[in-house]
């Protein structure tokens, strides 16, 4: 297993921090990609952050009312070592299948 940390992303418009309103997941929970993780409030608006990936939540940073700076750790996931990156899927290793058989008279000259 490997741990992947997800920092508070850039929320745009020059925002440098956000305040945690409410966590929607807790440590030990298995989350899916795009599942809502946390509600945070900036000086401009409140947003719900979707999970960038699937994985088991190991740690969450900041309780309700705590400020987190952009780029600081927000949540840590545990993922299997064979998890694909941000793009694509891990190919499954299958037993080779064939429909074609070879036939040849091999002259051993």
């Amino acid at each position, binding site marked *: 297993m490997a741990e992947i940390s997800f920092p508070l992303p850039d929320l745009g418009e020059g925002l440098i921090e956000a305040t945690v309103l*409410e966590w929607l997941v807790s440590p030990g929970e298995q989350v899916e990609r*795009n599942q809502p993780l946390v*509600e945070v*409030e900036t000086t*401009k608006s409140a947003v719900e952050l*979707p999970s960038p990936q699937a994985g088991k939540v190991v740690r969450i940073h900041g309780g309700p009312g705590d400020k987190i700076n952009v780029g600081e750790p927000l949540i840590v996931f545990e993922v299997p070592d064979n998890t694909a990156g941000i793009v694509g899927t891990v190919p499954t290793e299958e037993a080779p299948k064939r429909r074609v058989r070879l036939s040849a008279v091999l002259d051993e000259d």
Partner: protein
Amino acid sequence: MSGRHTGEQHSHTVEGTDPQLYVEVHEPQNDAGLRPVLLLHGFSSSSKLNWEDTGWLAALLDAGRRVITVDLPGHGRSGAPEDMDSYSPSRIRADLLQIVFDAGARPLRDGDPSSGLDVIGYSMGSRLAWEFGATQHELVHRLVLGGPNVADPLADFDLVAAQRYLADGTPIADESTAGLLKMAMLLPSNNIFALLSLIEAIKTEPYDPAEAVPHMPMLLVAGEKDDRAASMPELAALGAKAGAMVEQLVLPGRNHTNAITSRAFKQGAISFLGV
């Protein structure tokens, strides 16, 4: 974002002019077979800020609802027409009616859960939803009104002071006006002059919830720390007097800005509309 959606600059003319409103119709992956939901955002916000970034759109799509979003004039990706009339609440309601019809909403029919339209509004969007429900009772099935006002805070907006501030930086004496303008200017995507036109138009049609009262079932929602939570029973009483079934939900610890992302709000709305 799950589900397919189509986005368009709304080009159907209403009363001979093109409202230039940006409309998106979002299709759920698994349609629950219920009527579409129209989302109306607040002043100085947009469909993206009010409904997408806050998780509302995803939550509604997950619940199998078809969702219609529209950016109000001068907001988000909608145009900012120069004429004042484009911003008047009555004109916006006419545009909304055309938009939901174009998106496939049809008048309520007994026993057909796909007929009619549900409307969720927030703040200024709740004012529009209240009036839309009151005038379109044969179409609107249920209302969810978040951060609803009993009187329009924009009605007392000091336009002259705002224009002076924008012209030469003269400080604004009125606290509410200064606060609203500051909020509007925080978002570079806002067209400040279009928003001022909207305020000017609203002043010509001030909000009076008692003037026309919707009588379909409605859910009123506000944060505990939002002043509107205190005045919500007034609205509820108006609705009840008109024969509407009214539910109220107060979100602990939330204010007018951060009530919008609340899970309790979303879940309350989805179950209230899921009938």
